[in-house]
């Protein structure tokens, strides 16, 4: 609100408009038309991009979900057929389950580790170098991260299994075993994203007011008490936002799976995005693929809404 007032007071256009008003209504109208041309010109390229590559595909994606479409012949309206099929498709529900399992493991591990790293950095050092090191995996692509871990975790020749053998645990088929494949992919993506998440939380920690901590220390509160009674409650809105963001990103997992296991072994890593991709580009059933995308969109919408309600993300205890 305050910004708008300031704008009006300081806006040089306002002065010009005032002058125009004194001159009469005709000039004012033409001045207004002239005033509209400039914003339009400034907005045109981005506006075009928004309409063509954001709004139109969103509408079209929803429309395609009600059609049968193989890319070669025009889309044919089939009503709710795709959605009826979706409800009865065991592979869809499987892949949704796999995706949820992945998200739970990925987000759980990542949030805990990131929180620990952020708290440690907050206590120990604010070194930019260390923050840079922690962030470095985020700079390389998912594909690069997936390939290097594929090699490190190789059942026969991977160094991780060499170490496990040496320790007497025996080698584990990290990406070739149905039980381990999803946890492994979740861990690979934790490696790439935990530093980024930690720095987000770290930035949040920096904004917590010192006065509260000083008061707690004067009252004789120990570090543990301070953490649970002050840091965590104050950090809650920040953690909530980080969670919403990372969960939405996590649901869209594709690259790592596509490069390492392509859905196997025995469909154990057939995450939703991979199933959608395979439906569209492997079997050319774009209509059904679009329906599954809509389903994912709805799932993400519901999760965001629930999280928002549960965590009261927009409220902070500092208010």
């Amino acid at each position, binding site marked *: 609100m305050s910004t708008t007032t300031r704008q009006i007071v*300081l806006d040089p256009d306002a002065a010009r408009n005032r002058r125009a008003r004194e001159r009469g209504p005709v000039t004012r109208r033409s001045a207004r038309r002239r005033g509209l041309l400039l914003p339009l010109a400034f907005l045109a390229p981005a506006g075009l*991009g*928004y309409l063509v590559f*954001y709004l139109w595909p969103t509408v079209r994606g929803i429309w395609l979900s009600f059609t049968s479409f193989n890319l070669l012949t025009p889309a044919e309206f089939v009503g709710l057929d795709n959605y009826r099929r979706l409800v009865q498709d065991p592979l869809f529900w499987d892949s949704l389950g796999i995706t949820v399992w992945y998200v739970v493991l990925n987000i759980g591990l990542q949030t805990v580790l990131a929180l620990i790293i952020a708290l440690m950095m907050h206590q120990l050092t604010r070194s930019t170098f*260390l923050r840079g090191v*922690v962030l470095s995996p985020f700079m390389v692509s998912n594909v690069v991260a997936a390939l290097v871990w594929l090699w490190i975790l190789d059942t026969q020749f991977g160094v991780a299994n060499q170490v496990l053998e040496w320790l007497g645990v025996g080698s584990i088929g990290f990406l070739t075993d149905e039980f381990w494949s999803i946890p492994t992919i979740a861990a690979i993506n934790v490696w790439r994203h935990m530093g980024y998440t930690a720095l987000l939380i770290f930035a949040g920690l920096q904004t917590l007011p010192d006065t509260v901590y000083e008061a707690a220390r004067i009252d004789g509160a120990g570090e543990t008490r301070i953490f649970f009674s002050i840091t965590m409650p104050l950090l809650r809105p920040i953690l909530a936002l980080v969670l919403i*963001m990372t969960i939405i990103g996590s649901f869209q997992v594709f690259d790592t799976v596509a490069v390492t296991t392509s859905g196997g072994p025995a469909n154990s890593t057939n995450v939703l995005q991979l199933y959608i991709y395979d439906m569209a580009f492997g079997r050319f059933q774009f209509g059904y693929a679009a329906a599954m995308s809509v389903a994912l969109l709805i799932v993400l919408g519901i999760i965001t809404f629930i999280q928002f309600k549960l965590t009261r993300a927009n409220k902070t205890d500092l208010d």
Partner: protein
Amino acid sequence: MSTIPTVDPATPAPTPTPAPAAAARPRRPRPTPGKVLAWVAMALIVLVTLFPFYWMLRTALSTNASLYEDPAAVLPPEFSTGGFARVFGAQSQEEALAEGGAATSLVFWRYIVNSLIVATLVTVGQLLFCAMAAYAFARLRWPGRDLVFGIFLAGLMVPTIFTLLPNFVLIKELGLIDNVLGIALPTMFMTPFAIFFLRQFFLNIPREIEEAALLDGVSRVGIFFKVVLPMAAAPMATLGILTYMTAWNDYFWPLMVSYTDDSRVLTVALGVFRAQSPQTGTDWAGLMAATLVAALPMVVLFALFAKRIVNSIGFNGLK
């Protein structure tokens, strides 16, 4: 959706540097056992973070035969630059086969060029067009401005993944499949985030500076290009680096659009390299050399701008 509540346009703090509140916390003279433990844990995290980078290099500089003989050697078991030679097509077919490479060679020069073109197109286009739009939203006055801005922001709520399928159909209709322009186009004009990020900054440029230029007879367009853009050099650079990295690292969208060397970018080429590996055993030396080639430009970019990138992560507009 998640980003909206945190960012208050009235807050005069688009500078990414976290508040220096923590600096005031008193330092203890002697390290407590807790601190020592935290440092040890931190060192462990740094080790896990950096080890894969080292392993990539160590593997890329070995021969495949020696990797299979001595998989756990810390240094390259048998030094060779053959992996890099294969990646750049500098080995004959017989040589490549003898060293455990694939019969058909991929020449990565081409993919580097394609990646450079795509990332540059996306970054330059997005920066310019988003800055223009952000300026129209932040500084120009026109009816319906806040409504239109709200509609743009709503674009943040649709996960990118949802628009991929319909955008593929559109790019196909435009005849831009297997074309670098087709890869760049959807993100070349705008992302809601970029507009949002730059608008935040423009809102905080003192109006007096623009007023002074207006009084000197500089046009609105002139003010944008000669006064506002130079002042926004820092956030533009940060956004540019992040955009470049995102475009460079993208896999899913180029995977849909590019099929041959004409448009194949590095991430997609890596996937193909992995898929083409000989049946007898993966060409790990070559694959890690290729991975390194794909990652190196980002590692260099990061090394050059680490401070800027690290400090950009905060709650002034999440990504």
